[in-house]
């Protein structure tokens, strides 16, 4: 498989794509500027296909909208591949030259003829057949996805399926093609690159690799680096209750609002023996802390962000932080000093130029000096390298962590599995969650920016006209939503954006946040929780 969480291609590729395939991404809201590039591509003749349970704004631009049932992505993609193989429409030459595992893939997807999968996906068989034919004819296709793919118990399998489809079509390694996740947070890419992951050092070198350990022991002048993976967030939270974890440090995140199943999360956080936070605002999470450090915010410190195209950009300081707030890297450095380690780097530029970039092979050629003049897309292996807009372009130059294994790609045959919690008599609706345009995650930034609250100041639940009519309520009525984990009473918005049987919410405000309801069941490989699907009951009037 292809191994990276970043886009294989670039935004500038959007206009080169003959077909744009958007799966589980409400980009008009989550990545608004990217959506404008997609609009332009459509204006210039590209085909747009949207696969989404909701009739999002983007579907107004689409040539085809496949309105699948929540959580049926693997089945749908398998059925598309079924047609491609059955009708001999896939790129045989490309597959022979570059990919292994075709026989297993074929065996699996042949069990997903569109007529049979219709029951799982709700997508008419004819639509699947015509999409497969379109994809075969109108190449290259650029596949873009967001959390609609990853926030499922089958999230990793969904991603594999996207990669399978693009390999089968020969759309990987070409401009205007690729598998392109649009990453949500501004610097989630940079946090991963820097090694804020329990299994890898900066630059994705694995902690269980003795060579990597020796390298970082030498770099950091220590001898005690552990060779086994650390805890992931859900296990950390759980560990607070079981006392496996005694001290918890939360930097800049608000898990008390943004993690699923808030009752459970609050229960965990309140059992923490000792908790520290760095933040720019008091949040629900800082309330649980024993010590809170005030941080410098965006534009109060110099540094870098890396976007979803692997593009490293400078962030510049223009304002002083308020009061005695200090940069986060300084806070960590001071703590290290008080625990006996003195670190040489005394600004973000030092950290990048002297530590991070020299230690990460994909960043070797990126320095602050170069970033003064240009932004660079990694891998940038040396100082004269111009950057890499397209990954997997030439197997001879593939970067270590994101290459095809041994120069070839592997199909991964995947079977469909249902969501962890499916509607039943007691909880007959599906609740799916996401974001709205005017706020950003827990809204600690946006709610403090003048004007954005005027546009949206509370949580709202979207519901289909058919369902609303059955209960007898309308837009602005307060309805009660209950899952196995919690209950909230929230304002309704009746809209045909959502299909019958589904309700949809965001998680921007503490009050009536959808995470009182969501399921923390997670993907067994990535531990990403199933925010996109759980079972819910509606009561109107509220009981």
């Amino acid at each position, binding site marked *: 498989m292809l191994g990276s969480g970043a886009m294989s291609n670039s*935004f500038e590729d959007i206009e080169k794509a003959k077909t744009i395939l958007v799966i589980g991404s409400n980009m008009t809201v989550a990545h*608004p500027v990217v959506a*404008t590039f997609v609009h*332009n591509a459509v204006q210039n003749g590209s085909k747009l296909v949207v696969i989404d349970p909701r009739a999002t704004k983007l579907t107004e631009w689409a040539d085809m909208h496949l309105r699948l049932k929540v959580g049926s992505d693997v089945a749908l993609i398998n059925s598309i591949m079924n047609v491609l193989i059955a009708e001999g429409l896939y790129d045989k030459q490309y597959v022979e030259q570059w990919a292994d595992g075709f026989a297993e893939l074929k065996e699996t997807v042949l069990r997903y003829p569109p007529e049979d999968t219709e029951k799982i996906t709700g997508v008419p068989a004819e639509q699947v057949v015509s999409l497969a034919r379109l994809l075969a004819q109108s190449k290259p296709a650029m596949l873009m996805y967001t959390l609609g793919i990853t926030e499922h118990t089958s999230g990793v399998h969904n991603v594999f399926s996207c990669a399978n489809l693009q390999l089968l079509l020969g759309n990987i390694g070409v401009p205007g093609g690729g598998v392109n996740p*649009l990453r949500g947070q*501004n610097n*989630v890419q940079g*946090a991963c690159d*820097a*090694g*804020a992951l*329990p299994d890898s*050092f900066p630059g994705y070198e694995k902690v269980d690799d003795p060579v990597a350990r020796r390298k970082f022991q030498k770099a*950091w002048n*220590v001898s005690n680096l552990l060779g086994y993976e*650390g805890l*992931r967030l*859900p296990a*950390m939270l759980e560990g607070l209750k079981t006392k*496996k*974890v*005694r*001290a*918890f*440090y939360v*930097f*800049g*995140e608000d898990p008390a609002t943004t993690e699923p199943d808030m009752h459970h999360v609050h229960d965990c956080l309140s059992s923490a023996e000792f908790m520290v936070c*760095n933040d*720019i*605002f008091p949040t629900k999470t800082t309330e649980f802390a*024993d*010590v809170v450090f*005030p*941080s410098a915010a965006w*534009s109060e410190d110099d*540094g*870098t962000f890396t*976007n979803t*195209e692997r593009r490293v950009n*400078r962030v*510049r300081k223009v*304002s002083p932080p*308020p*009061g005695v*707030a200090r940069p*986060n*890297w300084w*806070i*960590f450095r*001071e*703590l290290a000093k008080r*625990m006996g380690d003195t670190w040489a780097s005394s600004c973000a530029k030092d950290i990048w130029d002297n*530590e991070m970039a020299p230690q990460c092979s994909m960043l070797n050629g990126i320095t602050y000096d170069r970033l003064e003049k240009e932004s660079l897309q990694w891998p940038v292996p040396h100082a004269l390298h111009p950057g890499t807009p397209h990954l997997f372009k030439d197997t001879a130059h593939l970067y270590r962590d994101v290459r095809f294994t041994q120069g070839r790609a592997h199909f991964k045959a995947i079977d469909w599995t249902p969501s962890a919690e499916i509607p039943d008599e007691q909880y007959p609706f599906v609740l799916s969650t996401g974001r709205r345009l*005017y706020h*950003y995650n827990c809204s600690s*930034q946006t709610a403090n*920016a003048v*004007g*954005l609250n005027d546009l949206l100041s509370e949580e709202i639940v979207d519901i289909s006209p058919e369902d609303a009519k059955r209960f007898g309520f309308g837009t602005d009525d307060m309805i009660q939503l209950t899952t196995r984990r919690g209950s909230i009473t929230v304002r309704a918005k009746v809209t045909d954006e959502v299909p019958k049987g589904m309700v949809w919410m965001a998680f921007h405000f503490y009050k009536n946040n959808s995470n009182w309801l969501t399921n923390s069941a997670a993907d067994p490989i990535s531990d990403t929780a199933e925010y996109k699907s759980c079972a819910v009951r509606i009561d109107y009037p509220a009981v």
Partner: protein
Amino acid sequence: MRHVIFNNKKVEFTENQTLLDTASVAGINIPTLCQGDTCYCSSSCGLGIAENVDTGELISTCTTLATEGMNISTESTKVFEARREKLISIFSKGAHNCFTARLPEGKCAPGHLEARELEWHEQECPAKGTCTLQKLAGKHKVPVMDIPLKIETPVVDNRSPFIARDYSRCIKCGQCISVCQDIGQNAISRCSYNGTWHPTVDIEKCTHCGQCLEACPVGALFDKKAFGIAKKKVTKVQTTCPYCGTGCQLQLHVKDEKIIKVTADEDVAPNMGRLCVKGRFGYDFIYSENRLKTPLIKEDGKFREASWDEALDLVASKFIEVREEYGPDAIAGLSCARSITEDSYNMQKLFRATIGTNNIDHCART
């Protein structure tokens, strides 16, 4: 190759190219207010005129195609005078009191004092100094003080929390309409008002991205938050948007170490001049009164202020204590996907190298 002559200079043109485009490729400037490759209402500003030297005729360069051997002047007295007339006519139809905002009564033509009374006119025009109309007026010696102003569209649209739309200054160039179509929002259309027209915004469709605001060549559309903040001593700093993973490049307009406005440059990747509502208007959260300003330590369930030394010492000693008693894996940390990469680097280094555990993760919601 085929040629036309501009101001006695031979200039090449290609098939189906307008005179305006031909001139612009050759670096010859013909002033226009509505020009743009996405122009929606061709020739509506009426300024893109030139003289056909052979016939003495005035022609519109934005609608006339170049043909072999044409001999064109863009600088003749005739052109200058015609442009001046056109500018006078544009001025006379709106609340363009930028040159007279501080003159005493009786020193300017009728209409100028009334213009001062309008909403959003209590401060000088937000486009002063950058306004294309104002620059052209100066260049063509337009006697602004003496032009009676008849305000055709005294309509103000205040519905957006960020964008003021003051159509009393609108010159009806259509730039906002084309730019909104260009990004695919299609939120603006023409609307007629007392026989003339002005753009109107379908507020349900509008995403408040402010792209129209950047396109407006005069002071009709402007940023409410930046209104009345003098433009002098502003420096521009390029940075990266703090919101989504697109990584748009912003130009911060900074005055006295404070951001007063955000724009974007058309030639900078990845966003090529485009922004969304959060990137353009969401910058001022950093100036909120709610910010944390000092370290806090909880005592008896309540936070009290503390010095850095006290708070850092407390955390370091607590970590050492936990590590001694329960081992390094009893400490866990969650890093931030919004802060700079270097912060995450130092945090994981603190956990791996100093504390001695791989218990470091960041928010799983990617």
